[in-house]
């Protein structure tokens, strides 16, 4: 920008000297063709910043006269100067003038080492070839990448819809479960009440009341036919599962509470309840009032059932919130990064195996087998114009000197999706290169080889 203003000033000043416009300019070393107009040969030269007028012989005379270095574009005399490598056949570029004649070949056309020991070859053509081949390759990659990206975008949209559907389904299931839950709560409440009543009645010796309760709540008991069905089916007591045993243990407790029960319990149930010990055998004589037992059992059974439903409800809710969280993440404008969530990518670097699970975790596993977290999904951290070019994972395992491990993942365009490199430039700060078609940007296509003819 400062150039622009000085350029304008230059124009104003040079207007007075316009007679020189037709003078053929001699080849001035180190300038681009667009700058040639500043160096038209005449008696004097005006520093481009307008600060000084010097005799034209002092341009490129290996002494720095202009503060902006403009009088020495072709020598190393000015500390802030720059030298233009024409690099015919390759890309032209500027180098700091301190690299002119320093014995190191910087311009591929060797133009910077015109007065040094360095024997520089003109490598522009080769470089150009290579660059063109490279760019061609890049273009191919880009084309292929963009094509794949389109697919992934399409898939992403589908995936997004699928996930949305999944969410809705889960929400429906949750609603159902909630209804069920309330039902179960009611039932448990009732069963608890009955149990309470029965126990009270038993304690009071009011045995006659119990069967009536049994009758009134026949339905409830019918619910527990299952238990007996089960025990009947499993004539051998050892077929009772652990799950049932838990219930049976509870039943046993109830049984003890309601000690004087009239009902005779079949031995296999007894065994199931008390085990096959000698003590148990002697207890066999005890007669249990089945209805009392059932009241006790019903309460516990209802409780267990309620718990099951509660758990199912919780699980569904968790799934919902997981999915919601997942869907809250920014997967790009077209959900093109969505497919990465749920995948993991591995790369071995020296003695370590690195795993990147995008939007989730990054970890490192040594050959010795210890796994260390290098961070949890944090955010997109690319620059404003391409924020999807970088991810940050934070709050990994704490570090020796305080702080915690963090990983920064740079996404680059490629035809395949995978982890390409991992580095740890400073302790606990990891840098990963992650290649994927979705990182391909159409703008890349505009880059290419220019050469000045």
């Amino acid at each position, binding site marked *: 920008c400062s150039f622009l203003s000085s350029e304008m000033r230059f124009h104003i000043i040079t207007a007075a000297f316009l007679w020189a416009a037709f003078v053929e300019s001699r080849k001035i070393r180190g300038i681009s063709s667009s700058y040639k107009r500043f160096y038209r040969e005449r008696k004097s030269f005006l520093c481009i910043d307008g600060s000084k007028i010097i005799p034209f012989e002092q341009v490129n005379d290996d002494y720095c006269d202009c503060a902006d270095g403009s009088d020495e574009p072709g020598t190393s005399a000015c*500390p802030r100067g720059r030298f233009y490598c024409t690099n015919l056949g390759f890309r032209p570029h500027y180098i*700091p003038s*301190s690299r002119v004649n320093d014995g190191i070949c910087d311009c591929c056309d060797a133009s910077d080492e015109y007065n040094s020991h360095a024997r520089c070859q003109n490598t522009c053509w080769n470089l150009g070839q290579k660059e063109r081949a490279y760019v061609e390759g890049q273009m191919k990659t880009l084309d292929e990448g963009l094509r794949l990206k389109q697919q992934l975008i399409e898939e992403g949209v589908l995936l997004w819809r699928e996930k949305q559907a999944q969410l809705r389904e889960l929400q429906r299931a949750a609603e159902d479960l909630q209804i069920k839950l309330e039902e179960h709560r009611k039932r448990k409440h009732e069963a608890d009440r009955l149990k309470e009543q029965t126990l009270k009645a038993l304690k009071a010796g009011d045995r006659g009341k119990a069967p009536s309760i049994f009758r009134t709540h026949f339905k409830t008991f019918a619910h527990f036919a299952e238990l007996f069905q089960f025990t009947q089916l499993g004539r051998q007591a050892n077929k009772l599962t652990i799950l049932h045993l838990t219930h049976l243990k509870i039943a046993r407790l109830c049984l003890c509470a309601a000690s004087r029960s009239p009902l005779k319990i079949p031995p296999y149930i007894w065994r199931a309840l008390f085990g096959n010990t000698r003590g148990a055998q002697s207890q066999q004589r005890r007669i249990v009032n089945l209805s009392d037992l059932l009241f006790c059992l019903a309460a516990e059974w209802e409780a267990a059932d309620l718990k099951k439903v509660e758990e199912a409800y919780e699980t569904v809710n968790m799934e919902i919130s997981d999915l919601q969280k997942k869907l809250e993440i920014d997967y790009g404008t077209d959900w093109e990064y969505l497919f990465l969530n749920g995948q993991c990518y591995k790369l071995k670097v020296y003695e370590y195996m690195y795993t990147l699970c995008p939007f989730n975790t990054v970890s490192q596993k040594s050959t010795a087998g210890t796994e260390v977290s290098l961070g949890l999904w944090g955010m997109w951290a690319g620059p404003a114009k391409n924020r999807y070019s970088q991810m940050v994972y934070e709050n990994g395992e704490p570090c020796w000197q305080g702080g915690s491990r963090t990983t920064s993942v740079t996404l680059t365009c490629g035809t395949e999706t995978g982890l390409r490199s991992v*580095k740890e*430039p400073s*302790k606990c700060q990891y840098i990963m290169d992650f290649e994927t078609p979705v990182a391909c940007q159409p703008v890349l296509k505009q880059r290419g080889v220019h050469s000045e003819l």
Partner: protein
Amino acid sequence: MCCWFFLRRMGPVLLLWVAVCLSGSWAVDKGNFKTCDQSAFCKRQRAMKPGESPYRALLETMELTNTRLTLQLINDNNKVRLLLELYRLQGNITRVKINELKPLKPRYEVPDVLIREPPTEPLSLLSQDENGVVLSLGAESQRVIVSARPFRLDIVEGRDVLMSLNSRGLLGFEHLRMRKDTFSYKVTSTVASVWDNIKRVFSSQADPEAENKEGTDPANPAETAKEEEEKVEDGMWEETFKTHTDSKPSGPSAVSLDFSLPGVEHVYGIPEHGDSLKLKTTDSGDPYRLYNLDVFQYELYNPMALYGSVPVMLSHNARRTMGIFWLNAAETWVDISSNTAGKTVFGKMLDYVQGSSETPQTDVRWISESGIIDVFLMLGPTPRDVFSQYASLTGTQAFPPLASLGYHQCRWNYNDQEDVRSVDAGFDEHDIPYDFIWLDIEHTDGKRYFTWDPHKFASPKEMLQGLQDKKRKMVAIVDPHIKVDTNYKIHNEIRSRGFYVKNKDGGDYEGWCWPGSAGYPDFTRPDMRAWWASQFAYDQYEGTMENLYTWNDMNEPSVFNGPEVTMHKDAMHESWEHRDVHNLYGLYVHRATAEGLIERSGGVERPFVLTRAFFAGSQRYGAVWTGDNAAEWDHLKISIPMCLSLGLVGISFCGADVGGFFKSPSTELLVRWYQTGAYQPFFRAHAHLDTPRREPWLFGPENTALIREVIRQRYTFLPYWYQLFYLAYQTGEPVMRPLWVEYPQDPATFALDDEFLLGRDLLVHPVTEEGARGVTAYLPGKHEVWFDIHTFQKHNGGQNLYIPVTMSSIPVFQRGGSIIPRKLRVRRSSTCMEHDPYTLYVALDNRRTAEGELYIDDGHTFNYEKKELMHRKFSFANGVLSSVDLEPNAQFTTKSWVERIIILGASKPSMVTLKTADGENQLEFDFDASMSVLTIRKPGMNAGADWTVTLQ
């Protein structure tokens, strides 16, 4: 880098333990290191109180030859006799040696530190009576007075006493003795007495007088020792510190001596300590300790020992500068007391007004654990004289390759070749020059030095060639601890040749260091050193080429599981205990490595080797840095006195880790550190493994620009740095020096250590305060003028000048009267600037004169020894600037020319004429009247030509 960090690799339990320790405090665990009270010999010796010395000079035993005086001393308490030798050495040095007359076995005398047997001058007897002897010390009116009862030495010039030895009666000399409570003592003493009897029989036959003599004056220490009861104290025959027991097979063997310096209030030197330039009195605490130790996160402003030791102290007052060089490599403590130290300025003034002041005096006392007393009294009288006296004994600074004066980029660690390549590219991208990139321990194959990690550094030559292509270089670390691993060639060879240090039981000594279990080559052996040197040959040290140089770390030696993190004192170096040679070990490692680098080039190329441990004489082998400092402002400040102290005792090539090794610097601290480091001799940024990256371009464009600017400033001054190092190599004068060295009569300079001089001509007052808005610099010299090197503003000397500062300010001044050649075309590396033209900065003094020098050679070989060099003198007087050859016999041609002459404090001439052998021509010039700066455009003559430029 420090040892304790290895623990983290040893497992989570230790990690937790260390973490707990760390969380408590960030500083050194003082409990890991001994105080004087915990060091038995120091405690014993320090318990001696000044008073009547038991030592008496036996004047009748005096023998005076042309070159030396010998005299026996007797301790009247135990009748043990000592032999005093006194030499007058060339160049106003007096050497005093005291050893047992007949020690049970030889006591260690430090070899390889003196560059030669110092040439003597005749001593002559002036007078003698029963009280003492007076000798003349050469041509000046200097005399040495030997008093007999009690023994003391006074060095006198005219009517002034310069220095007195044993004037406080603190000479202590623990004679070697047999242990009385052991079986071997009984046997040996019986044998000894039988032997004595036999001897007596024979000697009486041969020389009847001899027996007579012995009868009247029992001189045999073995005999007398038996007669009196030696007080046996704890720690004489065994000493335990923490979990380590020192078996002390030779028993007590300490030596100590006091020195009084009348008229002296300022003493300096005895590095290495993290303390002020002016040494403090030690009455209220521990003495300064000299014992090479790997101290984890050292604290500042205390007398604790650090990585290196140079037992040389300088004393200074407005009339005279002197030095004491105590040549002893064992653990040493130095006590300093002063009769004025406690006095306030007011008290001193009161004394002055009332005229009642006693003469100020500083008393010093040296205590060493073993060896002998061998002390060189360097009698000045000027600071330069003392430098040249010390240089005549231990040699001068190795003349470094020019590139090593550039900027060094280091980090623990650059991870792999790709990392090296990208950091290298970063410098080019940000247009910041550098010469060396460094690799720390992680570059090796499992901490096996002389190897490369097969994955991370799979093709080191390719990497080195990549650097070479940009005219840059690399340093790789080679530490002296060798992994015990039978698959490791270096270990196998050292073991099979028997080159390892041995433990007290005769097996190879093993300790823990970076690789785990490690052996320590016995570098005190010449054959070991020769073998070590041979390992640097290109065909031995695979993957190396000529642009790879070496860094010796951990050479105190550091032994993680040893007492005080170093080697057991009863480990054996052939017949000597580690106790005797400890402080010398690092010097030998450094030396063997430097010799290796010389040898690999067939003796052609100058080596560059950095060492952490050092001793007197280490200057001959390369550079030294101040070890594992921290990213704290105080550590930045202390880098100045630490390097000044080293410079005073010959070690000019000194630097501190820029940015601080431990912890992470704030951006401001980092920038200030670069600004300071750029004006210190060894300029290297370094960082701990656990700190975030801090390459110069990682702190935003503004800070990158600040750092770029200061590194570029460094490179513009390289011709001056190089010339200063040539001077240091020739004369021993420090490159970075305290102001008092150049202004010895100005007491205002005596304690300054927040600013310094480079040579005589550059005054640097770095900004070392956080958030500083300004600094106050003392500009010395009432008749001097000083020019700000950035603005060319002129300031008068003899004043405290307040300088407002911003983040870009580095207060540096060029002395009026000097001419400094600079190269303003800063390139990628110093080598790229080889043929570049010079700009001469001529700063005129009040008499409108100036002088300066220019030294040029090839920058990297020893050919300067064959006079392939160019050394020119510039002078400006009466409006004429001229260049004359200082070395007409030398041969060197340069492509460099003079592109610009800038005269500061000039008036506007009407015409400027250049006269060379080719004729005369007019030069263009530009005059800035506001600052009185005359810039002469493109005189163009070759830097090696004779020429004059006349202003009319």
